[in-house]
């Protein structure tokens, strides 16, 4: 039983080592940091106030967490791809939040105009 466990551990160690060797890629720290910054930017930009933006923000966060785990596991190449996805979601979240804000501003401006016109026509 013990022997079996030891063997298993060796096997796991081998697999991990080979995966790292196989990935060969460096830890995608730079893109990860960039993606995290984009997520922050989207949050500041109001992504939490718009449902669709919020969804993409959530996806970005989930994928960043996933990427961190992959890096821990030495799966850097896969992590890099997941980070790219997270980056795309974070950027989209910000763009959606900005669109929503601009549309709200336009609606407000239109309403103000309507109010003023009604007032003037009295």
């Amino acid at each position, binding site marked *: 039983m013990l022997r079996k466990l030891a063997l298993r551990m060796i096997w796991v160690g081998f697999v991990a080592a080979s995966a790292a060797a196989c990935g060969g890629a460096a830890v995608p720290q730079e893109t990860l940091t960039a993606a995290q910054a984009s997520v922050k930017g989207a949050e500041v930009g109001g992504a939490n106030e718009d449902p669709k933006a919020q969804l993409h923000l959530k996806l970005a966060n989930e994928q960043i967490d996933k990427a961190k785990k992959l890096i821990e596991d030495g799966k850097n190449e896969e992590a890099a791809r997941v980070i790219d996805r997270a980056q*795309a979601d974070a950027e989209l979240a910000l763009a959606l939040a900005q669109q929503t804000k601009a549309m709200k*501003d*336009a609606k407000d401006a239109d309403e103000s105009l309507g109010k003023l016109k009604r007032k*003037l026509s009295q």
Partner: protein
Amino acid sequence: MFRLTSLACLAFLGVAACGATLPPPELVDARKAYDRASKGLAAQLAPAQLDTAKQALDKAEKSFEDQGDGVPTPDLAYIAERKAELAEATAGKAAAERDAEGADKKFKDAQLEGLDKTKAELNKERQNSEKTKAELEQEKKELGEEKVARAEAERKAAAAMASLQEIAKVKEEARGMVITLSGSVLFATGKYELLPIARDKLDEVAKALSDQGFKSIVVEGHTDSKGRASDNDMLSLKRADSVRSYLVSRGIPSDKITSQGLGSSRPVADNGTADGRANNRRVEIVVSPLK
């Protein structure tokens, strides 16, 4: 040999099946997203972002061609779909900003217009109030002038009355103001030419009448009852005419003054006494007042 061929066949079939691999759902979504974005506002309002999306899609398509639906095709397609959506969102933002700007401009224009309108209304109101003020002032002035004029007229009339009373008997009767001039002061016996002293008195009367104002004047000649009535009538008429003519010559409008000879028909005293007869010989100037 046969087995080998079969194996090759199988392998070939497998590859063929591989070549016919359906695109991963991420790629299908990415194509749709890009198609929608390129046909929408993004082409005009977010061309750079749309181009980035196109490049991302091309990369995913190339990966699909080279690697099939395996890694990294789904990841690239996932990214391409988001890039296309980002282009759309950027365009939507730009359009909304454009709308807001337009509305802001219209708002400002309307505000200015409203301001102008309000200004014009205020100006109009001010002009109106100034006009009203001026009219009030004018009215006040006119009223004041009228008051002054009326007071002046009253004063003149009072003065005229006073001066009349000095030279003649003045009575207020229902038919008007009656100025009675004694016949002996005006005429020589049996004559109807005015005596010089009569002219002086009538000058005063004419002035007083002019000052006082009147509607119409009737000059009545009266005699005592001595002599023939027809003679008396004639004489009284001639005397009244003389007075009338003289007053007209002193500025009394001829169309406002008439004369009548009443003879002895309206005595004011007893014809049986000399004093009474003297009182009956007279000229009465009956003045109808203005009101």
